[in-house]
């Protein structure tokens, strides 16, 4: 029964002395079953926040460690010793200080590297445009030295800013600008102005992205010397870059980082707990949170071993106003499906957990839509063969493959060939109408199941009016059953009289009445329109969702049809070509149709299934753990 609902939870309260709080955090984290929660107490009761400073220091340190780790070439995840180690605030502060020094050094080197790389880019561009300077018939060395009255600047700026910069220079009195070259995204400019106004010129150059050109005085007369000079500068720059890169590697200090990481690993739980810890002047500290009921005893025993009698531990059942986190517990086979359910949403506490139903229906529907012994065997075998890479998705893939094999035997299909195996049931293409009927029947079953689950969920939430009278509740189920009954009578006996209409009309009137009641406060005309539209929507929803399941048959027919297409193509070829076409065709069916079928099954599960009964707005259970919090 526990597999069909989130685990029963308990709200617990643990009181320890302040000096024991860090150890309590470690113990709780080590157990891995406690999720801290802010205590529901007035501010004047236990007003202190004992872990605030600790938390602040830890966050700072963790942030620095993460930045250093990102840059260091990380090896495999570290394993830490099992023995719990309490990290006092002083030790944590020391670690933070050291991380600050390490990061400060690293950041400085990164900044140097950044500047050197830009300088190198600049020199390379200059070297590329060297020919330009060699054709200028002026002594650039003289131009770069300002005279008594004239202030000269030569440099580059982004081409994008040139027009604006030129206009800005033109506004400054007695200044002029000369663009003597443009290359890619850079403009080479010369600016001259009166020396006495050099302050304004400097400010403008600083605000603009102007880079002065540092050239040797002999620039004009000796192009080869210039070439050598630039090459030397480039070489020097590259050497500096390599030196900085080497220093960056040395600055990683991996051994020391490992030690600091261990400190933070054990400091993490108390830091995480610090946000919810409350304390009083007496030295008492309180922590509250949630824990699965089945783990209470184990935790209590662990606390007794660690603290003897120096603690108080109480537990209570959740109250209606509590926002209880949900813990799902399934056998290993169903855990991958749990992830797919969580993709849609987290089951609310007390709500039906759809994981097992999802798993079974997913596997069955995939098999139905992709029934082929050969294709199924390939999928199953591939799932198993690549199990290390696929991880926990091995199970769904392999199980889907096996389901396809079973349906393959039912359909009598192996790699598209329907003449080799005798169908234990029938080939889909031999009776499409029957396949569609079966698919619709399957859909009806699933929809009724979803509606029933919704009804149970609504009762569990004590939303009784909705449970009995809404489309999503019992009235909706009766409407749907009434509709099916009416259709059955019409299709089988050709009659649709009072006996057939009443099972539809009565639940519909109940639903409309409920919706009318819900829309109180609205203007009369608007209320009528809203109720009628919602009523119509209720019916159309059932119809469209039911018909949606026809795709289960459609894809089984599609599978057979694709195989026919492949064989038709193959038969137009002789010998070798025939078999190549068969193989490639099967690969195409496996990959493309396999992916499409998986998506379609998920769509049916999420939209026609979950959306009907599953709110998915539950709270994730985040237990306290050793190490930094996981995202």
């Amino acid at each position, binding site marked *: 029964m526990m597999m069909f609902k989130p685990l029963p939870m308990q709200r617990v309260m643990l009181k320890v002395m302040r000096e024991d709080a860090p150890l309590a955090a470690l113990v709780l984290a080590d157990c891995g079953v406690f999720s801290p929660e802010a205590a529901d107490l007035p501010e004047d009761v236990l007003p202190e926040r004992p872990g605030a400073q600790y938390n602040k220091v830890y966050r700072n340190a963790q942030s620095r460690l993460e930045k250093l780790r990102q840059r260091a070439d990380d090896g495999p995840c570290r394993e830490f010793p099992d023995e719990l180690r309490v990290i006092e605030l002083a030790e944590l502060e020391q670690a933070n200080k050291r991380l600050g020094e390490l990061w400060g050094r690293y950041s400085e080197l990164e900044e140097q590297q950044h500047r050197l790389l830009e300088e190198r880019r600049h020199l390379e561009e200059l070297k590329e445009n060297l020919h330009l300077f060699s054709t200028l018939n002026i002594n650039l060395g003289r131009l770069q030295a300002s005279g008594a009255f004239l202030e000269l600047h030569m440099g580059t700026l982004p081409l994008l800013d040139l027009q604006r910069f030129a206009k800005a220079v033109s506004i400054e009195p007695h200044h002029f600008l000369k663009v003597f070259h443009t290359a890619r995204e850079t403009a080479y400019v010369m600016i001259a102005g009166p020396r006495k106004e050099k302050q304004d010129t400097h*400010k403008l150059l*600083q*605000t603009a992205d102007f880079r002065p050109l540092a050239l040797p005085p002999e620039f004009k007369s000796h192009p080869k010397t210039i070439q050598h000079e630039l090459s030397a500068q480039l070489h020097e720059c590259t050497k500096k870059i390599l030196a900085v890169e080497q220093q960056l590697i040395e600055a990683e200090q991996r051994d020391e980082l490992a030690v600091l990481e261990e400190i933070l690993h054990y400091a993490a739980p108390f830091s995480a707990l610090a946000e919810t810890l409350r304390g009083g002047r007496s030295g008492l500290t309180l922590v509250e949170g949630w824990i699965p009921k089945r783990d209470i005893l184990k935790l209590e025993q662990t606390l007794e071993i660690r603290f003897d009698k120096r603690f108080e531990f109480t537990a209570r059942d959740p109250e209606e106003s509590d926002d209880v986190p949900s813990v799902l517990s399934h056998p290993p086979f169903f855990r991958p499906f749990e992830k797919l359910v969580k993709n849609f949403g987290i089951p609310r506490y007390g709500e039906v957990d759809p994981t097992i139903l999802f798993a079974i229906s997913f596997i069955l529907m995939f098999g139905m839509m992709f029934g082929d012994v050969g294709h199924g065997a390939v999928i199953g075998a591939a799932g198993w063969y690549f199990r290390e890479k696929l991880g926990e998705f091995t199970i769904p893939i392999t199980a889907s493959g096996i389901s396809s094999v079973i349906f393959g035997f039912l359909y009598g299909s192996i790699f598209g060939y329907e003449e080799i195996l005798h169908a234990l049931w029938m080939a889909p293409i031999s009776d499409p109408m029957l396949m569609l009927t079966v698919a619709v029947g399957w859909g009806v079953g699933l929809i009724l199941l979803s509606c029933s689950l919704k009804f149970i969920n609504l009762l569990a939430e004590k939303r009784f009016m909705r449970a009995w009278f809404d489309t999503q509740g019992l009235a909706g189920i009766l409407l749907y059953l009434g509709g099916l009954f009416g259709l059955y009578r019409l299709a089988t006996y050709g009659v649709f009289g009072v006996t057939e209409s009443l099972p539809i009309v009565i639940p519909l009137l109940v639903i409309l009445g409920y919706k009318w009641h819900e829309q109180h406060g609205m203007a009369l005309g608007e209320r009528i329109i809203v109720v009628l539209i919602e009523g119509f929507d209720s019916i159309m929803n059932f119809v469209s969702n039911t018909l949606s399941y026809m795709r289960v048959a459609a894809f089984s027919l599609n599978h057979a049809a694709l195989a026919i297409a492949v064989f038709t193509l193959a038969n137009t070829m002789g010998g070798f070509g025939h078999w190549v076409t068969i193989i490639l065709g099967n690969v195409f069916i496996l990959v493309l149709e396999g992916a499409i079928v998986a998506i379609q099954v998920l769509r049916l599960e999420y939209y026609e299934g979950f959306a009907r009964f599953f709110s998915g707005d539950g709270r994730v259970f985040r237990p306290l753990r050793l190490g930094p919090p996981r995202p």
Partner: protein
Amino acid sequence: MNLSARHPYLNARISILAARLMSPERLQRLAEDLIEGTDAAWGLPEKEGNIPPLDMEQALLFTTLLADFMILVRPLTGTERDFLVYWIRKFEVANIKAILRGKMADMPVGEIRSSLTDIRPFSALPVGDLLRTEDTAEMLRRLEADGPYGTVARHAREVYEKKRELFTLEATIDHRYLSGVMHKAQAVKAEERDALVRIAGFVVDRYNLIWLLRYRFIYGLSPGETFYLLVPFGPRRLIGTDLAELARSNSITEALTKLPIPLQEKLANARSITDIEQIVEEIVRQAARAALKQSGNALARAFSYLILRECEINRTAAVLKGRKFRFAPHIIRDGAGLRN
């Protein structure tokens, strides 16, 4: 086929949303009722007493402006969508400046974070990473590393290396952002471009005029440097006068005399740059209202709607904040740009 013909849905949505905008008179009445404490009939959140002012602004901003924005941007694609998303990112540019200010002033991380605006799902700023940086240089390096603000960050970093002044840094960031607005507006398809550039031009020119006056006459920048920090584009409908010519002015009065006559007349009673700013903002609002009513261009209408909506929210939030801090009524009216 223009956007309006391609997107009758968008035009219809804009018309529905525009019907909810308050007229200036109605906004004035709301503000007066809020100031006097007789606002019960308006149905605003009652107990803002316990909500911190920034949270109130955030709540108003997110639940109204961003909700409307998501509706308007949904049917758009390509350059039209790019423009509107770029526009809403001005809140992230404000966040970049807030983080810079916080880093330079060594503010606690929590305090910086609480001053930021959240524009999810359109946010592209790695706020967490930026807040974890130790100093301004590291922050700008991180911003430059990836994301749509790389160019802004690169220029800001270069300015920061030369001039470690917050003012120049912020001015550079603002300038780059607004240049981007005009660039994006000019990049939309030809059939949408003119109407959009017209209204975007009003908005950008409003900033040009106020920045010019502040940089030149409050911060004392040279004419050249002042001009460099503006966003020239053409043709300009609000100011009209060449910005370089305005930058050469030696006083506010001289600058105002160089403006087109109609604008001069409107600014005749302005006693300070703040007054000028409020008058020019009203001109921009009038242009936006006109575009919303008369333009057949859905993108320009959508943009105009967002301008007006944001203005309405800002003014309402300013009044609520002023009331919470118990400012005098005339100060609240001034702060919210309302008539006294």
